[in-house]
């Protein structure tokens, strides 16, 4: 299976956020909100750090 680095990041974030959401909160609504929050942070941090490394390498 050949995945791009970004696809790997998105899959990683999806699975980890699902587990975090279920295990760290008590009610379904809070689980969904926390899961989405974690997903956005995972993917957002990856994008920001990637651009940062891009400019450092130039």
């Amino acid at each position, binding site marked *: 299976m*050949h995945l*791009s680095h970004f696809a*790997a990041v998105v*899959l*990683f974030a*999806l*699975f980890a956020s*699902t*587990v975090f959401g279920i295990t760290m909160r008590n009610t379904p609504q809070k689980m969904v909100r926390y899961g989405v929050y974690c997903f956005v942070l995972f993917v957002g941090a990856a994008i920001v750090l990637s651009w940062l490394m891009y400019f450092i390498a130039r």
Partner: protein
Amino acid sequence: MATEQKISASQGGNQGFVFLPLIVGWLVPGAGHFLLKKWGRGALLAASIVGMFAIGLAMQGQIHTGAKDILDLLSMAGDLGNGLLYVLGRAMGWGTTLPQETTADWGSRFIVVAGLLNVIAAVDAHNLRTGRKAS
């Protein structure tokens, strides 16, 4: 508050070995929650952890079989968190192909993190069983 939850958990018919959801949840991803009749959560946890493990293998990730240094030891500890998936992988010879893709190292990390997430899920099942977590 915590005492009330523990009392309500013990009065809720949860008899038997208190560590059973922890052990079963570690051996089979999501099974700890299935034992507690949390079907939806168990299914999502199982799909996430098994999916992560399977995608890690498909990306030519390695299952650690021994420890040459401290990083290998930590990675192997993470792999062991997969429970029976790790045993199955070792028995079937999965995760031993030589990596030919640049994302193969990601695959190894996927397998390690799947194990760590499984440990978190098993501890969550234990907390539900003891009443430390409300619902």
